[in-house]
């Protein structure tokens, strides 16, 4: 009876050639850094060794050392937990809240739905940096305030995505069939709508982790995030600025890590999206 009127999906090309395997390799390396930093890092990331300060890359310090004589590679390895960990936490918290919010909005009557979406607009319009400053001012500078402020501006994206999907899926014949057999709206949502929404959300989560990582490191770089001596990647770059003329490695390696990580998540997200569309 109903004709599905799916909007034309944005077609995303599947990453070609070695890009996807490389992205997966980066992911494996990041997982190793996060789970077993003690096994991989050759040096202590915190202890100072003033005799070795600002040494260029060598066999003992492959990424060189910083102004405190600490091994930059070891600091990057330990820092993965902070930078990537916070990024993942932000995205998962936002997704969880956004999915629930969006699903309720999509199933609700029109008036309630409208109200809920205007609230989402309110959050969308809020500038991230101003919010981060405000949160940092009220609960103190640190990764927790970064996580909180980014999660506050991040969830509305999920709420909107999920509401749109729910509205689309509600008209699907299998949902109508379930309704015709007296299945309750809650059960319909849980069994006949959410499983399809989750596929869409998975793609978004993957891509978003890369973006969130950039956002977290950017806020740390601006001095709103991690405090020394936490080896957070954004903070490494912030600390490296005075020495850029003489110690390029101190800036370049953490910067490269951020770029590689963000790109890897973006590529994997594209691969998931292209598989969904196919």
């Amino acid at each position, binding site marked *: 009876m109903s004709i599905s009127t799916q909007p034309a999906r944005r077609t995303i090309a599947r990453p070609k050639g070695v890009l996807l395997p490389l992205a997966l390799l980066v992911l494996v390396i990041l997982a190793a850094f996060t789970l077993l930093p003690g096994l991989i890092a050759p040096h202590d990331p915190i202890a100072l060794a003033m005799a070795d300060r600002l040494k260029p890359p060598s066999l003992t310090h492959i990424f060189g050392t910083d102004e405190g004589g600490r091994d930059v590679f070891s600091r990057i390895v330990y820092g993965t937990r902070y930078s990537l960990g916070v990024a993942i936490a932000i995205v998962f918290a936002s997704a969880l809240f956004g999915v629930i919010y969006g699903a309720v909005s999509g199933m609700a009557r029109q008036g309630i739905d409208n109200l809920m979406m205007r609230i989402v607009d309110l959050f969308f319009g809020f500038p991230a940096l101003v919010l981060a400053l405000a949160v940092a001012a009220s609960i103190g500078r640190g990764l927790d305030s970064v996580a909180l402020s980014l999660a506050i501006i991040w969830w509305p994206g999920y709420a909107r995505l999920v509401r749109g999907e729910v509205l689309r899926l509600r008209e699907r014949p299998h949902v109508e069939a379930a309704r015709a*057999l*007296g299945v309750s709206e809650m059960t319909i949502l849980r*069994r006949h709508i959410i499983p399809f929404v989750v596929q869409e959300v998975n793609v978004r989560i993957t891509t978003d982790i890369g973006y969130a990582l950039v956002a977290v490191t950017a806020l740390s770089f601006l001095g709103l995030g991690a405090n020394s001596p936490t080896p957070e990647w954004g903070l490494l770059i912030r600390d490296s600025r005075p020495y850029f003329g003489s110690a390029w490695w101190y800036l370049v390696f953490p910067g490269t890590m951020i770029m590689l990580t963000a790109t890897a998540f973006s590529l994997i997200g594209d691969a998931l999206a292209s598989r969904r569309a196919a």
Partner: protein
Amino acid sequence: MILSVRDFAIGFQREGQNLVAVDGISFDVEAGETFVIIGESGSGKSLTGMSIAGLQPPTAFVSGSIRFKDREMLKRPDAELRKLRGPEIGLIYQDPLSSLNPVWPVGDQIAETLVAHGLAGRAEARKRAVEMLERVRIPDPRRVASAYPHEISGGMRQRAMIAMALAAGPSLLIADEPTTALDVTIKAQMLELLAELKHEMALTIILITHDMGVVAEVADRILVLYAGRIAEVGPADSIMLQPSHPYTAALMTSAMISQTPAKQELNAIVGGAPGLGAFPAGCRFHPRCPRAQNDCKAVEPPRRKFGVVELACHHPIEAAMSLTAARS
């Protein structure tokens, strides 16, 4: 009498205009019969079927009365309607693939109806789902119960849909163009199955279709709907063989392809069905009717008894001349 529809109307408001899709129809359905609602697309047949189960679009306005087992269905709270759908009224739709959820096994979806109405626990419901699959003549029901919809054939999916609709033991089954998506042999099997299940489970069936072949197989009584109005209603035999309303006659001749000589042109009805909000004055069929006269353009024909049928026509076809007249 299991269902009684009186002056039922349904319509939509669009740009401040009232568009009436079904305009005051009345009919009764007796327990145990197969009642066929037939009409072109846009005649309002699906909307009527959906409204019986309380599934009309929420934006529609309705009037009149639909009484199912002495319960008024229109304007009944949603929660109460939900309790009736499944245990009292079952529905099957035309597209068996998209009507099954691709992420759950077939058996789970049949069991869901039972669980939703508290008729069985999860384990018991699953057992009953296998029994239901057996009941709709699916070979190896245990295997099919744990298969996903894409793993079974189109005919099996439609059988699974029927099992879903009948799992909670309804007395009324509404089938909205259940055979449209099926090929001819499977269609025949499906109609046979419905007829058998009707006897086994003491069902009343309301079949909504535009397929004359289906009508001929199963109908006890037929309601012909045209542009939201009843053209003719009566016993299947007399409507099929001696149609009195010119529209019915035209429908029947256009369907008799197999009985006409190969070289004869197909009898199509001239013109197209009027769109919503553009119904002509007087008899709604008059612009396409070969028997139309001046009174048809001005006065809407009242419903009246005519032989064994009831119809709304100023100039019905007399029994003796019916088929020849329609063909000429």
